[in-house]
């Protein structure tokens, strides 16, 4: 925020530079989602690359991926191309706890995540904010008596907007929550204009998944000591395993 103001206030200047960055041995990246909607659900496994290489991440092939729930279902995922593994019989049900195990080579990784109850989006509305930017607000009611964590995903004209938006009910236990999405800066994907078709997903997360997205959101060049997001997967894997309830709502940005 402050950097933004600084940038508005003063004529700052940006340029692309060449930097010699360190390289490191490839690390395992795991990303798995289970929703309260019918499957199949996917887990993708890939590896990191050096900064100066292109954004093509080597898939991890031949891994053994198992997800089981705490009601007796165990699903060994079927390998598809590009390091994608899909479930065949698992169902995402709120209140269930899901355990993920990934074995690749001699290393195994595990995680577990409990799917919270779904929270409906009451309304979406836009208003005009700083420098004629449209700002989108999401209104929903927090569930009382439990700790709740949320992630908001925005699709603009069917394109997913990059980035992580999370909220906790720390200050709003059992109350109405209004979440404002940042939509500042010209030319950025997050800028919305009249006529844009916006879909919002509201994911109810458990604490481990929330910690991942919170630290992923926080991380940035403004931190004096940037670090990798806090993963809920063991053994040093990057990425997350998220069993969440999702609700959706859409809006066409009015004038």
């Amino acid at each position, binding site marked *: 925020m*402050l*950097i933004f*103001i*600084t940038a508005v*206030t*003063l004529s*700052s*200047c*940006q*340029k*692309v*530079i*060449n930097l010699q*960055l*360190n*390289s*490191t041995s490839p*690390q395992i990246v795991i*990303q798995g989602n289970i929703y309260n909607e019918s499957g199949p659900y996917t887990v993708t496994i890939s590896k*990191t*690359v*050096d*900064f100066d290489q292109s*954004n*093509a*991440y080597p898939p991890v092939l031949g891994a053994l991926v198992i997800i089981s729930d705490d009601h007796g279902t165990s699903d060994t995922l079927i390998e598809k191309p590009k390091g994608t593994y899909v479930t065949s019989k698992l169902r995402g049900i709120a209140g269930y706890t899901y355990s993920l195990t990934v074995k690749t080579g001699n290393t195994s990784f595990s995680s577990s995540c409990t799917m919270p109850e779904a929270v409906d989006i009451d309304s979406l509305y836009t208003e005009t904010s*700083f*420098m*004629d930017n449209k700002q989108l*607000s999401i*209104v929903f009611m927090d569930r009382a008596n439990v700790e709740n964590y949320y992630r908001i995903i925005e699709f603009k004209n069917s394109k*997913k907007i*990059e980035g992580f938006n999370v909220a906790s009910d*720390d*200050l*709003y*236990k059992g*109350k*109405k*929550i*209004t979440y*404002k999405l940042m939509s500042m800066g010209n030319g950025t994907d997050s800028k919305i204009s009249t006529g844009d078709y916006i879909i919002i997903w509201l994911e109810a997360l458990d604490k481990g998944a929330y*910690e991942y997205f*919170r*630290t*992923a959101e*926080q*991380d940035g*060049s*403004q*931190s*004096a*000591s*940037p*670090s*990798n*997001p*806090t993963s809920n997967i063991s053994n040093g894997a*990057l*990425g997350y395993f998220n069993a969440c309830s999702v609700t959706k709502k859409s809006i066409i940005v009015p004038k």
Partner: protein
Amino acid sequence: MLQFYCFVKNQNRIPQHIITYFQKQKYMRKKQYFIFIFFIFILQSIAAQQRFTLSGYIRDARNGEDLIGASITIQELPEKGSVTNAYGFYSITLPAGLYHISAQCLGYQAQVQEVNLKMSVKMDFNLPEKVNELNEVVVTGERKNENITKTQTGMQKLDIKEINSIPVLFGEKDVLKTIQLLPGIKSTGEGSSGFNVRGGAADQNLILLDEATVYNASHLMGFFSVFNSDAIKDVSVYKGNEPSEYGGRLASVLDIKMKDGNDKKFSVNGGIGLISSRLTLEGPLVKDKGSFVISARRTYADMFLKLSKDTNMNSTKLYFYDFNAKANYKINDKNRIFLSGYFGKDAIGISSFGINWGNATGTLRWNHLFSSRLFSNTSLIFSNYNYTINAKIGDEINIISRIQDYGIKQDFQLFSGKEFTLKFGFNSVYHKIIPGAITTKGDIDMKSLTNKHSWENAVYISHQYKFTNKFSMEYGFRVSAFSVIGPGNFYTYDNNGKTIDTSTYTSGQIAKTYIKLEPRATLNYIINQESSVKAAYARNVQNLHLLSNSTSGNPTDLWIPNSNNVKPEIADQVSLGYYRNFSDNLCEFSAEIYYKSMQNQIDYKNGAELNFNENVESQILFGKGRAYGLELFMKKNQGRLNGWISYTLSRTERKFDGINNGSYYPAKQDRTHDISIVGMYEINKKWTLSANWVYNTGNAVTYPSGKYQIDDKTMMLYTNRNANRMPAYHRLDVGATWMVKKTPRFESSWSFSIYNFYGRDNAYTITFRDKENDSTKTEAVLTSLFRFIPSFTYNFKF
């Protein structure tokens, strides 16, 4: 202590019972022995012949301002001398006789008075300012080699006139920007008023304004400091080897004293600049007895925004103002009172989000002379720093955070017969921290973080002693006690940051007390009138810590006191310096080396949540640090061309379990080389040119060492903390001052400057992203803030 106090009061009559009291102590422990040494020195000085005390004040003849650090020399006894204290008071005890007493101060004409000392007398000096530097007559007997002879090391004093002529960003002359040009003191970043001293973090500097702690010295993200140089009289920086009357921070003390105000006549001065203006009024309350000064400053960048037709733009707030005021009154020769205050505020507001913050300080002081040799000052000190965040996110929410100090400080200064001064006193401060309190008009929980209360006490004693004409010493110690008090909850955490125990304390109940002994010593050996060698050791303890995880420092950074989890930070610093003056003290040179070892340093766990977290202490890691370096400084004080060159070669490292496998790594502020060159050239009486050039190695930073993808977003992979370097920083600023008119009644001038004259793209941040036109690749982007920033200011004085 009481005995000691009586003893001091009655020191002319030798109190035999105290001597025997000390002689009777058969089994003295180490500490007691240390104290005993002080008394020996006192006693030595008392057993002397008929001696009388000459004391008084040295002031500026034009406006009556007390001159701090002015020196008194005796022409008949060249090895004798004294220096005025923070209130312009001096005292010197001599055998009966006829003397010529000379008073001098940098930038003033020396004055000599004759005295036939047959009894203790009071003698004040009013020194006229040196008006014409160009045709300066060298006053013989002037003691210009004070840097050689004074015991203090690792200390820099700034001349306000220097601050005024050095070109700065937006033309706003600034104390904090100027000290960053001195050796061992580095800027935390582009345009920042934050600074690092000898490898210390920005919160390890004690910033005092008339003895009150200033918790956030920045306006507008640090581009301006809170110190309006029109209201300031004296600036001293101690780089870790401060005398024992100071304490509470690891790295340095920046002691800023406000002007007292002109007690001769009413005067006005001010300046009108591009983005801010300032005005100072001063004058006598009662002529020669009391005076006042009021100084105010405000930026008006937001006024231009008001012209905008965009409703969001013209309702945008972006300004700061500050206000300094001080009054003093001399009740009689023995009593004088001072009341000073500072109030400043910043406000930023954009549509539904606003933040404002500011400091307020207040000091009420009472100077009292118990005798011509015992000077006392009692201060009641208040300090407040707070910020308020206002956000309309559906409902309107206000978050308030505050740190508040209520303190009392008592200082005694005993000038004794032989070449020695004894300083002792105590300091007691109650700190109240509100880490975050939420108020709302809407229907949300008003959850607030537990307020933190603490009580900080210290006693100190310091003894300045001249063994021989060549060898002097200042040594002493400080005992600090920091108590964490209720009401409040105190949490115990396991290794994963989970709360395993909560203990609740009631109001005023002491949860934990940390008592630390802080010894300090400085030795000076004068080789000859042109060179000396000094060595120093000091231990400093810090009980309040700033949690900040931003590169530039934010107004919302949180101060936390010691607790059951957070232990006092401790630094031990040794330094050695060589001082040499050239060409009849025209140039001074110094070389200092230091080594500092630090304990209980604070860093954050990866992904730490510092904002509005009741369990913020569970997010912290504790480790140690070390810093060492070489500082070279060459300064030309007088003549048409003057200025300085300073160079620092240094290293600062940290070691934490859990970061970089527990091995030493460079701290953020680690910079190998740091160079500043400052020059001022007076072409003629109308025009003065100035320039400064700075160069430093880039800060240690963490760059990614790889990348991966999550939810279609490119994520950076970080491995080792601070394993990389920002590009080197360098910049040239130029300035000119045009004196339009200068008469005793009216003075006006224009000052012009260009910041970053050759437009270097210095890195403010370096960020990493997908290539704009080719999302299959990534790129590094350098953001720079200021290039060729011109500014001009019109200054006036009448």
